[in-house]
């Protein structure tokens, strides 16, 4: 509640700052904005940013830190006496927080007065029952120590809340003052604002790095643990994948990697040509009406849950392929689940990834390029193939990379469509499986979570991460080399 209020106050101060900053700058030049370095709105925005950004940052940090600090000090008080023999401090703290919260709710609902909440003791009151009246359920009766700690908790939090409120508002005001003082005609407000925005942009791109670090960190420890109990050599070089419970599993990643690449390849062989042709048709040939219907329609394919594709692969594509390539005809295929089955279903799913994005970039190629080609007597398809697609190449590569990534990361279709067999084979009509599918199954299975069979999921994840990283570096390198010719 008070946080919402605080946020609103800061927002209001920001708005006020905007107006003042703008006015002050304008006033200094008697309303002639031409004499200002920047547009008046930049002066306003400058003040607004200076008012709001530090204040919100402080508020955020404080909100994160206060519970920790309060926790720490209440905890210190509990340490000696009251930690029940069989309870860790953290659980007692859970109780303390629950009671403290309960008191808060009770006060809010008028079940208890503020003083009462402060002076309550376990002898004279059944705290559990009183809190029950306010709809706060407690797991057990409240001990005096816990109640006391809860009251202390409430006190500290209350003080913290007030201090936060005051400091945040003060900081906002300070920022406002600073910004307003700066708002002189010669102040480079635009540069200042743009610097601020640029920092925000940089911050946004850092999130990608943070995510990467997070992923690596969340995988790496268990991966190390895995390699401690399972030889890395076997993991990377063995061509057999056969986990079992009794120990003695063989956990070679090669067949899984092979399956991943094979299935992704087939999916891309389906999705890229179909997607590109669809994109080309939509952007170059189709009438506006057809385009406005077909494009979003195809995009639905990306939104159909993958389990549907999995079932579609299993129940429709598999039997169909079996009829064509099965024992009755050429005998390449033994069962309905195969690399081909999953690859086809996945390919369908990936069509919109390629088509929609490529359509947008193709559409963005300037008309002058087309005119130039038509003017030479090129047919539309020649123009597309030789002028437009090369011009749109960077974007198309991006789209294909996205589709490839999605193919590598897909699980459900593989589980249902490809069969679960980990094998190294060239025949696309055989069952295989992928790294991702095995990550999911090893992670969510029945194996002992500290065993190699479960930990291998992390090693698989880590390896896949490194492998795709390598592939991406390669892709970047190729694109760069290719692109340099053009720009």
């Amino acid at each position: 509640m008070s946080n919402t209020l605080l946020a609103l106050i800061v927002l209001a101060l920001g708005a006020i700052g905007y107006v003042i900053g703008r006015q002050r700058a304008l006033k200094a030049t008697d309303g002639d904005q031409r004499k200002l370095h920047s547009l008046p709105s930049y002066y306003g925005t400058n003040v607004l940013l200076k008012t709001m950004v530090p204040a919100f940052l402080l508020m955020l940090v404080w909100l994160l830190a206060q519970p920790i600090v309060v926790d720490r000090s209440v905890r210190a008080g509990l340490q000696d006496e009251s930690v029940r023999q069989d309870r860790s401090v953290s659980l007692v703290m859970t109780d303390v927080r629950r009671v403290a919260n309960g008191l808060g709710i009770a006060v809010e609902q008028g079940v208890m007065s503020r003083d009462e909440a402060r002076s309550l003791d376990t002898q004279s009151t059944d705290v559990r029952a009183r809190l029950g009246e306010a709809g706060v359920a407690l797991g057990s009766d409240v001990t005096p120590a816990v109640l006391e700690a809860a009251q202390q908790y409430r006190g500290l939090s209350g003080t913290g809340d007030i201090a936060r409120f005051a400091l945040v508002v003060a900081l906002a005001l300070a920022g406002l003052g600073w910004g307003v003082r700066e708002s002189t005609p010669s102040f480079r407000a635009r540069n200042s604002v743009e610097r601020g925005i640029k920092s925000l942009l940089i911050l946004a791109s850092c999130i990608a790095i943070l995510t990467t670090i997070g992923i690596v960190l969340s995988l790496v420890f268990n991966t190390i643990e895995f390699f401690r109990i399972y030889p890395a050599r076997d993991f990377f070089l063995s061509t057999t994948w056969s986990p079992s419970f009794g120990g003695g599993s063989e956990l070679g990643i090669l067949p899984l990697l092979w399956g991943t690449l094979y299935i992704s390849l087939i999916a891309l062989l389906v999705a890229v040509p179909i997607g590109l042709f669809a994109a080309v048709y939509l952007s170059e040939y189709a009438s506006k009406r057809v385009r406005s219907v077909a494009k979003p329609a195809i995009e639905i394919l990306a939104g159909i849950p993958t389990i549907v594709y999995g079932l579609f692969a299993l129940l429709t594509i598999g039997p169909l392929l079996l009829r064509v390539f099965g024992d009755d005809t050429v005998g390449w295929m033994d069962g309905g689940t195969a690399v081909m089955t999953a690859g086809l279903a996945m390919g369908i799913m990936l069509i919109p990834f390629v088509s929609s994005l490529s359509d947008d970039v193709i559409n963005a190629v300037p008309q002058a390029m087309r005119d130039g080609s038509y003017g030479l007597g090129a047919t539309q398809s020649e123009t597309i193939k030789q002028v437009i697609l090369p011009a749109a190449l960077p974007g198309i590569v991006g789209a294909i990379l996205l589709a490839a990534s999605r193919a590598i990361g897909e699980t459900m279709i593989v589980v249902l469509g490809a069969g679960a067999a980990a094998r190294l084979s060239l025949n696309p009509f055989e069952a295989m499986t992928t790294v991702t599918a095995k990550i999911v199954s090893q992670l969510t299975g029945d194996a002992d979570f500290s065993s190699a069979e479960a930990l291998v999921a992390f090693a698989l994840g880590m390896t896949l991460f490194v492998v795709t990283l390598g592939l991406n570096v390669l892709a970047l390198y190729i694109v760069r080399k290719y692109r340099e010719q053009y720009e």
Partner: protein
Amino acid sequence: QSRENVQIAGSSTVLPYATIVAEAFGENTDFPTPVVESGGSSTGLSRFCEGVGEGTIDVANASRAIRDGEVETCASNGVEEIIEVRIGYDGIVFASQQSGPEFTAFEPSDWYQALAANLPQDGEMASNPNSNWSDVNGDLPDVEISAFIPGTRHGTREVFEENVLLAGCEETGAYDAMVNDMGMSEDDAEAACMEVRTDGASVDIDGDYTETLARLESNPDGVGVFGLAFYENNTDTLKVATMSGVQPSTETIASGEYPVSRPLFFYIKKAHIGVIPGLKEYAQFFMADEIAGPDGPLSNYGLVSLPEGELDEVQQRIENETTMDSQS
């Protein structure tokens, strides 16, 4: 903020029963409906063992007993007191399409001979020559072997390997042949008994029983391994085969006649009792006679409930909050 609800995670085999209980618990008590996550026994236990406190789960469902290594990890993370609750048994049945070939009776030996990677032949291990069920046993239909068995991530697989494959291996004398004639160590022989062929006759299913069912749907000659509850819910599309002459049912499993079954569990963090409202009540509710007893909704759904005495003992254990180490 403090957590209001009981938080449960773990086995997908226990999940159905847990949902029945959770729904009833929410409807019949003043506590909020517990949250039951699926994700597998292993995930559930690993989260269970992350530590104590509100941010961790209170109960882990498991379709197998917790392992020593896991207990150690738990302990090292401060989860020292665990209450083990055995809720009943899960029967494992062999079923095929209602309209498919006549699979009506199996012996463990049939399965062993059909699925083993290698069979002893003239004092040597040779790769399994059987391609049709009738090659294995003349009474079985003459259709290609196509079995859908639980993948290695499933606890069911372990039961299948031990109670069916290994049993069949011993029944046919293959085990003895390996140990005595070929001079294999007992461990090696056991491993050889349980090694499943990879030429496509047997398909590992990593997903749920619905996936096995879907596989059968696209392959009418297939035979699949299911949980009893699943089969009972799908008698319109599946027909079940006897194993060693015994028809699977809650009664034959409870009595121990039917050979393939496994116990199901959930584990409670004792430290959370009294901290998380409703935790103990949930466990009590779960194992109450009206729920987990032979006439309760769980049994009605397909859980093989605990025999009378055992149920009492479990109820007692919950009541007294008896932890695992204190019972042993």
